[in-house]
């Protein structure tokens, strides 16, 4: 939540959440690529467990890594407007020292980069910043689904907790329970479209989180009243274990039977 709403002003934020050391590596590259593509900060949101993990990491050959660099303005323009966007909402960005002199500020600014208090320009800037992200969710949203196609009970989990959830889902399937795992790698913008699709099929969504319930609010917002959403929360400094998630899955099975 701090990654999303941590500063003043209304602005979009891309936040990526790795579930392994390997993914910390690959998502770091993705984070830079998204940042360069959309000219925006990207947060790679790790947690204590992933941050302290030591795991095998396979580093790909440099030639296999896809690198996106920012688009730059053509040379020789009479006047370069550093915040005048192309059709995709992203303005070409010149580097300092390459000939186009301009001003960068955290204040509300116009297309020239200079500060402004003009309400129309302020509104246009904030809308552009949001739209350039919200119009390109297909390029930004990364998710992973495990056995969700026919699942009646979905575990929505991110970060290290998703690994416990994966184990729980496999055990539930062995017991004949139709459980599935949905893991957002991009947690902001929240993958609302994907979660809505899950809710259309599943009866219940379980959201295990290592906090008192943060992203569950987004899940509830998308799920509405037709899908049961329950949390498993822990703030003791320990992980949520697979058997605890499995217990929650079993509880949902009972709830469903009872409802019948």
């Amino acid at each position, binding site marked *: 939540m701090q990654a999303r709403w941590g500063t003043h002003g209304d602005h979009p934020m891309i936040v990526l959440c790795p579930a392994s050391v390997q993914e910390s590596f690959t998502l770091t590259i993705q984070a830079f690529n998204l940042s360069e593509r959309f000219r925006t900060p990207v947060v790679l949101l790790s947690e204590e467990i992933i941050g302290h993990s030591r795991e095998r990491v396979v580093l790909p050959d440099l030639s296999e890594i896809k690198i996106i660099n920012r688009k730059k303005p053509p040379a020789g323009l009479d006047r370069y407007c550093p915040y005048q966007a192309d059709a995709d909402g992203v303005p070409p960005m010149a580097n*300092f*020292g*390459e*000939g186009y*002199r*301009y*001003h*960068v*500020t*955290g*204040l509300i600014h116009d297309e020239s980069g*200079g*500060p402004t208090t003009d309400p129309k320009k302020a509104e246009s800037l904030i809308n552009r910043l949001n739209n350039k992200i919200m119009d390109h969710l297909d390029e930004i949203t990364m998710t992973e689904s495990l056995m969700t196609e026919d699942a009646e009970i979905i575990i929505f989990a991110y970060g290290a907790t998703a690994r416990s959830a994966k184990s729980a889902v496999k055990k539930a399937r062995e017991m004949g329970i139709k459980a599935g795992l949905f893991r957002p790698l991009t947690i902001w913008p929240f993958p609302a479209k994907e979660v809505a699709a899950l809710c259309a099929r599943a009866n219940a969504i379980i959201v295990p989180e290592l906090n008192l319930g943060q992203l569950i609010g987004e899940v509830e917002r998308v799920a509405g009243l037709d899908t049961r959403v329950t949390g498993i929360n822990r703030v003791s400094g320990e992980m949520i274990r697979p058997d605890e998630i499995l217990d929650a899955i079993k509880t949902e099975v009972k709830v469903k039977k009872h409802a019948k």
Partner: protein
Amino acid sequence: MQNSVEKYLRTEKLPHIWCAGCGNGIVLGAMVRAFEKMGCNQNNTVIVSGIGCSSRAAGYMDFNTLHTTHGRALAFATGIKMAKPGIDVFVIMGDGDAASIGGNHLIHAARRNIDLTAIIFNNQIYGMTGGQYSPLTPPGSIATTAPYHTIERNFDLPELARVAGATYVARGTTYHAAMLTNLITAGAAHKGFSLIEVVTACPVSFGRRNKMGSAYDMLMWQKEQAVSVKKAKSMTPEEMQGKFVIGELYKGAAPEYTEVYDRLIEKAQGKSEEE
């Protein structure tokens, strides 16, 4: 202002936002005169600023200008200099910005002796936010956050920078404007971390509460309290009470950070055996 320095200004952005009597315009004037004197290449120069009245100066100058977050100007500037050591980087900060919020960035930029020229507008107060006392507000001053008076001792910023490792340290005032241009020019020419503190007046948020009179009176206060390096040597501590020294306070030599870093890169790439 003479036409010769106008090319360093974004005249379309003027008039500036500063209050009548503010000294910031004098510092801005000294900066552009220094640029003129140095024959500055605007495309190859970056001016970074923090937050506060002083930091708005960056936007009025026709360079690559970067108005950053509070206290972090030196962090941004360090990044720019590391990425492109060939670029000349000037950093504008206020006293609160540089000494309080950015205090750690300041001592570590000095310790690294990275080739930046930091110009600190010391008006002894957080002016833009309404007159809260800063680490450079003298003890016994009145501020909105010290209605009875401040009880904290103030930093001697040039002294702090010197002991932290800066290799060029100076102090000027907005009264001694010609000297200020020279100090900025010398600081820019110096290889390594240069800090120039500029004592400037904030008649609205500092002077008014502390009964210092008009903007003119505050300039005269600078004239009376400032003592040159040469003269200070012959004065006793009692005579120096309440006064401050202006001029070039320290000039030393130490390895410059980006040069040392370049050598390290060469070594890591096996191009050089040099330690």
